[in-house]
């Protein structure tokens, strides 16, 4: 049995397989299909300072080997999360990391500060890369000063593990990664969705109510892998890789490219058991290749 545990800053994960924010609900939605406790961690859907209704329907469009979404951070706000959702999920024996979003720096700070005391929330993931909100969101993630500012502000009110989730919609993602590392990020998640668009040619209308949306799924895997490779060479903090991961081979590619852990997003929709299959597949790969500790694979790409 290979040792699959990895460390993201202070968090020791049982294994490198986590679920991605916005694609796994609060974990509960998957209880019928898998034992959520087996995962290295779960990233909850975005949590904002106030209730948000999200964008108008339609919010998704299928694309070749992927999908666009424009959910737009729908959630009932941090207070509701603490009062109503947290009690339902705190029994999970895995790291529960809350994805924190907002339109203002103050909003981010408010959410982080309120989450800080929750014992079973062992970390937060700052979403500075959501392409589906008019204000804030991706704007924070596409310039170094903005990314640095929000990271620094949240750092000042949050003392557990803080991961910053980066936007791929930039010329130089390594620079942004370094900016957030400098301001105190403990880890970076690479990548959020790519801004895309879908049109119904017959109706001559955009398919999404928001015209553009975030592209995810296998289609973006080559881009995500490249960015994980670039960022892991640029920063010292651990990188969490995601974007299109659908099977164990994909996951191992991300580890080899430099990711310490991975997240599985859209693939959960296609196969609600995929996270466990990936976990089993990593185990099988390690056994087959005589790898005793999964850390041997991290960044082990031979170029």
């Amino acid at each position, binding site marked *: 049995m290979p040792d699959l545990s990895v460390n993201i800053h202070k968090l020791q994960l049982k294994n490198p397989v986590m679920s991605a924010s916005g*694609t796994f609900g609060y974990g509960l939605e998957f209880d019928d*299909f898998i034992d959520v406790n087996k995962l290295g961690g779960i990233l909850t859907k975005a949590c904002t300072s106030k209730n948000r209704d*999200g964008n108008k329907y339609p919010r*998704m469009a299928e694309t070749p*080997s992927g999908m666009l979404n424009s959910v737009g951070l*729908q959630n009932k706000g941090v207070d509701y999360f603490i009062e109503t959702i947290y009690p339902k999920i705190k029994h999970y024996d895995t790291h529960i990391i809350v994805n924190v979003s907002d339109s203002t720096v103050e909003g981010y700070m408010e959410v982080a500060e309120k989450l800080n005391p929750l014992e079973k929330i062992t970390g937060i993931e700052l979403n500075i890369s959501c392409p589906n909100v008019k204000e804030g969101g991706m704007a924070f993630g596409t310039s170094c000063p903005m990314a640095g500012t929000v990271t620094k502000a949240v750092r000042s009110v949050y003392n557990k593990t803080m991961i910053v989730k980066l936007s791929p919609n930039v010329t130089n993602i390594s620079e942004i990664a370094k900016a957030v590392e400098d301001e105190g990020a403990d880890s970076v998640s690479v990548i959020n969705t790519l801004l895309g668009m879908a049109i119904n040619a017959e109706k001559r209308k955009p398919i999404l109510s928001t015209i553009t949306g975030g592209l995810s799924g296998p289609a973006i895997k080559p881009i995500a892998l490249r960015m994980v490779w670039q960022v892991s060479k640029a920063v010292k903090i651990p990188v969490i890789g995601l974007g299109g991961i659908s099977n164990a081979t994909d996951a191992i590619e991300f580890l080899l490219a430099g990711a310490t852990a991975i997240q599985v997003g859209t693939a959960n*929709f*296609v196969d*609600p058991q995929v996270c466990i299959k990936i976990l089993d597949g990593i185990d099988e790969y390690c056994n087959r290749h005589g790898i005793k500790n999964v850390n041997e694979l991290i960044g082990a790409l031979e170029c």
Partner: protein
Amino acid sequence: MKKFIHDFEVTLNDKISNDCFVLYLKCPVSLPTILPGQFAEILVGNSSEAYLRRPFSIYDVDYQKNELSLLIKEVGKGTLALSKLKIGETLNLVYPLGNSFSIPPGNKALLVGGGVGIAPMLLLSKVLNEKGKQPDVLIGGRSKNDILEPEKYTVYGNLFVTTDDGSMGEKGMVTQHSVFAEKISEYSQIYACGPDPMMKAVAKVAASQNIPCEISLENTMACGIGACLCCVVETVDGNKTTCIEGPVFNTKKLIL
């Protein structure tokens, strides 16, 4: 209700019209109870173009044979691939999903289906019949060919038909059928599934008569299990997920 993921075996792929077919699928284990209005998310394994699962209402259930069936209309790449499935091939289902139609307060109910929207009405009429209720089924279509497997409904109740061209039943839209003029007050609940304009028309009549009305929505879905929040519908209580809190909604709650 607990959800399952199983590989079903195709026992029959029955082409019932120009562009519609019924898939009969055998469950490898004992079928769980499936409520009328619930649906399944199907993995289209044999298409190079359909990436996400596709949702379909459960058309009928045969607990004895351990089979369920789906009534599917070919409208695009996924349904095209499904139409080509052969006996013995397997199909992966996540099911049973969503809420379900409620039991009517009184004895009689009207079930209205337009085109392939009729799919959830078969299991509903069967279950209502089993519960000692009297389901009247009204099917509308453009022409005779759109009235799919009408004989299946007469087992459980009365059948009424409208067609736009008058080639079967009464001529006109469903809400122009004489049951609306003559018998509407007898019904304690109305159910509808089909094209949006049809459902709106039915909902309007129901509201005017103060009869509770439930419709089944077909919002586009990514996950079907409440995880993605893509399938929302605006209700008087805010956004609701069609896949978990629907697909069946009381029309009073919807902003139509």
